[in-house]
C-alpha cells in the first residue's frame, strides 16, 4: 500500500483506539480521582458489560439496533449495581486502605471471571452492531461502525465532563475528592458518594464495553487488556485528571499505530510498558498533571 493511504488508515485506527482507550480509562480515572482507590477489577467490569450485552442482544426480540440500544441502558445499570454492592459490602469495610483495596479488587476480578465462565461459557461470542455500514475508500474498506464509536465516545466524555463540572452531583464528588472529612462536616454522605462513584466508574466501563463489543467479541478473559491499557492511559495522563486521561488516550492511540509500523509490535509494547513505569518513577504526577 502507498504511504498516503497507509498513513490515513493508521490515523483512522489510531483515532478509534484513542476513543476506546479514553472510554475504558475514564471510569478508572474517576474512581481513582475521587476515591484514591486503584480498582484492579475495572477490566472485569468492562468484561461484564460486554457479556451482559451479549445476553441482552441475544434474548431481546426485534431488530438488532433496538436490542443494542437496550443493552446500552441495561448493561451499565447491572454492572453499576454490582459495583455499588461490592463497594458497600467490601471496600467500605476495608476503609479504602489502598493496599487492602488492591488485594480485594484482585479477588473480585477472579470471582467475576468465574461467574462469566460459569454462566456465559468459554467461547468468544459476537454481538451484532446496530447497523452494518462499510465505507469503501479507493484503497481500502473501513467499518462505519468504528467511526460511530468515536462519535459516541466524544459524546460520552462530554457528558462526564458536564456531570463533573456543571451539576450538583459533580460538585459533591469534587468536594469529596478534595477533602472527605470536610465534606462530611458539610453534611455530605461520603459513603453514598463513594458507592455512587464506584458504580459510575463501573457503569462507564460497561458502556464502553457495549460500544466496543461489536468490534471485538465478548469473552470471559477479555478484561485483562483494557485494564492494562487503562492503567497506562491514566498514569501517563496523571492519576485522577480527566483532561489528562483524554489527552493521554489520544497520544497513545495515535502513536501506537505509527510505532508498530516501524518496530516489531511486541517490541513496541515492551517499550510502551517501560515508558509507563518510567513516567511513574520520574514524573509521578503524569505527563500532563501539575506538580502536587
Amino acid at each position, binding site marked *: 500500500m502507498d504511504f498516503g493511504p497507509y498513513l490515513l488508515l493508521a490515523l483512522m485506527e489510531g483515532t478509534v483506539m484513542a476513543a476506546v482507550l479514553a472510554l475504558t480509562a475514564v471510569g478508572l480515572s474517576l474512581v481513582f480521582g475521587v476515591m484514591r482507590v486503584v480498582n484492579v477489577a475495572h477490566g472485569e467490569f468492562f468484561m461484564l458489560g460486554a457479556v451482559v450485552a451479549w445476553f441482552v442482544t441475544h434474548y431481546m426480540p426485534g431488530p438488532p439496533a433496538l436490542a443494542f440500544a437496550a443493552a446500552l441502558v441495561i448493561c451499565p445499570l447491572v454492572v453499576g449495581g454490582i459495583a455499588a454492592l461490592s463497594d458497600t459490602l467490601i471496600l467500605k469495610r476495608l476503609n479504602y486502605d489502598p493496599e487492602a483495596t*488492591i488485594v*480485594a479488587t484482585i*479477588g473480585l476480578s477472579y470471582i467475576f471471571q*468465574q461467574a462469566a465462565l460459569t454462566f456465559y461459557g468459554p467461547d468468544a461470542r459476537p454481538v451484532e452492531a446496530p447497523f452494518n455500514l462499510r465505507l469503501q475508500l479507493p484503497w481500502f474498506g473501513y467499518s462505519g461502525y468504528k467511526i460511530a464509536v468515536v462519535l459516541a465516545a466524544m459524546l460520552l466524555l462530554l457528558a462526564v465532563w458536564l456531570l463533573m463540572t456543571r451539576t450538583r452531583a459533580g460538585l459533591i464528588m469534587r468536594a469529596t475528592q478534595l477533602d472527605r472529612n470536610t465534606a462530611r462536616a458539610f453534611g455530605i454522605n461520603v459513603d453514598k458518594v463513594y458507592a455512587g462513584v464506584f458504580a459510575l466508574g463501573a457503569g462507564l466501563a460497561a458502556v464502553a464495553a457495549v460500544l466496543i463489543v461489536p468490534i471485538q467479541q465478548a469473552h470471559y478473559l477479555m478484561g485483562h487488556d483494557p485494564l492494562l491499557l487503562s492503567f497506562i492511559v491514566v498514569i501517563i495522563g496523571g492519576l485522577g485528571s480527566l483532561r489528562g486521561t483524554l489527552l493521554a488516550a489520544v497520544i497513545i492511540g495515535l502513536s501506537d499505530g505509527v510505532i508498530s509500523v516501524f518496530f516489531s509490535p511486541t517490541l513496541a509494547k515492551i517499550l510502551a510498558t517501560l515508558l509507563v513505569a518510567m513516567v511513574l518513577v520520574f514524573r509521578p504526577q503524569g505527563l500532563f498533571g501539575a506538580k502536587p
Partner: protein
Amino acid sequence: MTRAIALHLAVLALLFAAQFILPPYHHTNIARIMVLAVFAMGYNIAFGYTGLLSLGHALFFATGLYATGLGIELWGLPAAPALVLGLLAGGAIAAATGVLALRTGGVSFMIVTLMFAQAGYLTILYFGSYTRGDEGFVIARAARSLGPLDLSSDTPRYFAALILFALGLLANLALVRSRLGRAMVAMRENEERSRMLGYNPFKVKLTALVISGLYAGAAGAAYGVLFGYVGASFAAIQYSIMPLLYVLLGGAGTTLGPFLGALLMFYLIDLSSGVTTAHLFVVGAALLVLVLFAPKGILGWLRDRGAKWLP
C-alpha cells in the same frame, strides 16, 4: 527465643520424616510446595517485613527460571552453576527493579513493579527464538542432576527441595533477628521515624528487595531443574499474585506463614477441584475473606492471640 528455633527445627524434621510416609502424589506435591514456599518467603521479606507490596515478583521468579534453563540448554552448563546463575540473576533483576521502583511508594510502587513484570513477560515472548516463547522448553533429563543426585527422581528431588527450603527458612529466621531485619520492620511501621533514627530507607528497602529477589530467583531456578520445564506462563501476572496470596493466607511478617499459606492454598485448589470446577472463585473468595476478616493471616492471628513469640 529458643521456642522459635525449636519450632522451626520441628517443622523441618516433620518435613524430613514426611517423605517416608506420604503417598506418591502428595510426596511430589510437598516437594513443589516447598519450592513455591521459598518464592513466597522471598515475597514475604519484601511485603511482610518491609512493607513493599510488589505486583511484579513473577519477574524475579521467571528470571531465575530462565537463567538456569537457558544456561543449561543454550550454554550447556551443569546444573550446579546454572542454579547459582539463576539465584544471582533473580537478585540482579530485583536490584535493577528496586533502584527505579523504590523511588516511588505505595500504589505507584505496585504499578511500577507490575509494569516491569509485564515488560519482562513480553521480552520472553520477543526473544522467542531462544526462549521458545509461550510454549517454553523442556530441560533435558540428563542435565537435571547434581553430582550423583538425579533430581528427576522422586527421593533426591524431595531432598533437594527440602535442603533449599531449610536454607531459606533458617536464613529468614536469622535475617529477622538481625539488625537489618529490625531496620526492615522499622521501614514498614514508620519510615519517617526510622529516617530520623539514622537509617537510610532507600538502602534498607533495596537490600530487602534484593534478598527477596535472591529467594525468588533461587525458587525459579530450582523449579526449572526439579520439574524440568521452563515457560513464559511463569512470568505472567498470576505468578505475581500467587506469592501474595500465600503470604496473606499464612501470615505476612511471619517466617512460617509463606509455607503454611502455600500448603493450604495448594490443597484448597487441589481438593476443591473434586467438588467444583470453579477454581477462580475459590482463589477470589480466599483473597476477599482474608483481606476482610484475617488481614494478618493465620499465624498473624495466632500471634495476636497469645503466641507472641512467633517470629
